[in-house]
């Protein structure tokens, strides 16, 4: 199993970081987040399509770059750092991984190339975003693949061309494909805290779905792990950006005739924060390596998701607090990262849920 990043992976990080710095500055994020679509289609085509990020983890045979969870994590981390707006998480991380892990050979060959090239925007419909054990409670499939039910929050459904749906059929959970515009499919955008990640309610009223795979418990757990690990990376990028800008601010802001960063209460808070972020970052990178190698602790992704969420929220809280009044304004950028941190903290399971999931894997259910 890998323990450090390879030179190629380091290079990937540098290239992605540079492109995002260029294409996704805070001013652009603000502009995009205020639109209904939520992102700039041309920029997404360039990064997701031309640069190959939408298919970074997709096998080459299916039109992707042939990377894995580690490469996916690197991209997610850099996107979290810049708060990139675009359907990367919905399409690449969620729909892409669902197809890779659970779709049959023929469906993978047919559907993945579009997702990998960025020409098709996918999303994954899960009717429970708290824990894998809740999935399939609402959206049902008949034996002929007719879908009914509601998923309360689906990431980027408002722009999706392809809905990959996990639904409960009589034989168990199955994976279904539905194209946008299908009859009986209703999408209602919801009001969200984090404007950089759009959510919609998706309702199926006897929609014709195509059965493309079975989702047993193990597959769903692995899919959940892959998504949680990628999200943990995103949060680490977010946390580090919050942390770095906050530390810099304390060096520049003067009160009582000295920089506020010379006050020990702030220094010690920053030192503790660094430790929390470093530990979470190590767990996060480890989780991707475990998933890539199929080795290590089976609960590595849950450790990463729990630790990264807590660290990211600590960084977000400090980011506001250490800026004082200006930190609480709409005009200052800190709240954008704060809100992403809050959203990511609870998407795919709160830290407490992941810790319980971890303990269940380690010691069995309570």
């Amino acid at each position: 199993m890998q323990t450090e990043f390879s030179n190629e992976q380091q290079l990937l990080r540098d290239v992605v970081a540079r492109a995002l710095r260029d294409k996704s500055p805070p001013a652009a994020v603000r502009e995009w987040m205020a639109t209904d679509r939520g992102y700039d289609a041309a920029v997404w085509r360039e990064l997701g399509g031309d640069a190959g990020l939408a298919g970074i983890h997709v096998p080459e045979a299916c039109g992707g770059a042939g990377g894995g969870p580690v490469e996916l994590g690197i991209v997610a981390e850099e996107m979290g750092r810049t708060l990139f707006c675009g359907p990367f998480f919905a399409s690449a991380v969620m729909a892409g991984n669902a197809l890779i892990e659970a779709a049959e050979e023929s469906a993978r060959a047919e559907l993945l190339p579009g997702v990998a090239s960025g020409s098709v925007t996918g999303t994954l419909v899960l009717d429970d975003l708290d824990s894998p054990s809740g999935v399939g409670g609402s959206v049902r499939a008949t034996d002929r693949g007719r879908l009914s039910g509601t998923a309360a929050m689906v990431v980027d459904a408002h722009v999706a061309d392809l809905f990959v749906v996990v639904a409960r059929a009589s034989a168990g959970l199955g994976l279904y494909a539905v194209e946008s515009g299908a009859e009986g499919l209703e999408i209602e955008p919801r009001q969200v805290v984090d404007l950089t990640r759009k959510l919609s309610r998706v309702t199926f009223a006897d929609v014709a779905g195509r059965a493309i795979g079975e989702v047993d418990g193990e597959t769903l757990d692995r899919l959940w792990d892959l998504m949680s690990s990628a999200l943990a990376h995103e949060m680490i990028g977010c946390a580090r950006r919050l942390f770095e800008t906050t530390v810099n601010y304390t060096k520049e802001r003067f009160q009582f005739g000295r920089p506020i960063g010379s006050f020990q209460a702030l220094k010690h808070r920053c030192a503790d924060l660094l430790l929390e972020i470093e530990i979470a970052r190590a767990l996060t990178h480890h989780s991707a390596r475990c998933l890539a190698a199929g080795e290590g602790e089976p609960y590595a992704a849950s450790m990463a998701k729990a630790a990264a969420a807590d660290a990211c929220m600590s960084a977000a809280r400090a980011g506001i607090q250490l800026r004082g009044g200006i930190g609480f304004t709409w005009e200052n950028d800190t709240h954008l990262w704060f809100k992403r941190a809050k959203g990511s903290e609870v998407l795919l399971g709160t830290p407490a849920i992941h810790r319980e999931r971890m303990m269940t894997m380690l010691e069995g259910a309570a």
Partner: protein
Amino acid sequence: MTPDRIRREVSAWLEANWRVDRPLIEWREILLEGGWAAPHWPEEWYGRGFTLDQTMVVAEVFREKDVVPAAQVGPRGLASETILACGSDDQKRRFLRPILTGEHTWCQLFSEPGSGSDLAGLSTRAELEDGKWIINGQKVWNTSAHHADFGLLVARTDRDVPKHQGISYFLLDMRQPGVEARPLRQMNGHQSFNEVFMTNAVVLPEDLIGGEGNGWHVAKTTLSFERRGFSRRVRGSSLDGPKQGPIYAEYEEELRIATEPYTWYPQREGRVDLVLPRARETGAINDPATRQEIAKLICLHTGARLASDSAEARRKAGATEIIPAGSIGKLAASVIARQASHVHTMISGADAMLSGPDSAADGIVAEVLVSVPAISIAGGTDEIQRNIISERVLGMPKGYRADQGPFRDIKRNA
């Protein structure tokens, strides 16, 4: 050298030299001459310039063959690393050898009643009289000083310059009339540390290390080794099970004396290894609140290990972040120990009122609860580590100081 090649070479050498009927010191002399006593040391000084990983291979072969290694327990390591880094060739020649053979044990004479965190505020005096340094003053919290042969001593040689500049670093012979060590009892009942009184104690000029007035620099070298030791685990390498042969008896006796002050050290780290067995045994493993806290502990413990491994890898690749990595690791060790102590308390419940053989894990859990407070004090407090991290890693501005100018004018403890 590849691990296989090392393995072959050291095995062949042991085949020819290792015997259980040699006296301990004699064996260690042979070990030294063979160059296998401290393979990570430089070639001129008994070593082979090995990396840590290469050294581990050698240690592994020693363990497999039940071979007694060079002496390594306790503050000896601080002494040898400091002397290697800052000592003269003459000092290296005189002191390194008996450290490896186990003839000399050492202690660290840094803290004083009036200055702990503020180590550079120390006031023990060293004055040159008739070509000898005469030492007067008191040290405190000095682990193993009651059986040490030598001490790493910092003392003030000039009171008229700013405090960091007037300090010198000495290698003090503890076996002399002017030095008295009195054991102190700790809150966990053990007596590992001492107070040390120096009354006209003598140090010869050749035992000043790093030059007069340069003691602060040498002390920082010692401290950075000490911090790194907290994040890794320094342990006496007791051999598995009883072994037959005269050399083993001598070795076990050496270990018994040298490790006695440290029997509680694993407890001050929180005994994370006992958490799951205890939780299963008591049924606390089924309590949702306890499960949450155990999971947090596992995340901290695993994450800190991964982070320190990767810092170590980056360091080997040439990054220069030794001191901060030590401080981050030391702070992590405190956080882990406190969380472990918290979890042990949750698991034990009211039984946490009990102590000794009558209590959980033969008293080990009780010892954890009253030993963990030491880890955030010894070797530089958590607050000091946070100062170092914020100033040296994060580049946050230093606070305003009230201790500049000549040492004699600074406000101090009475």
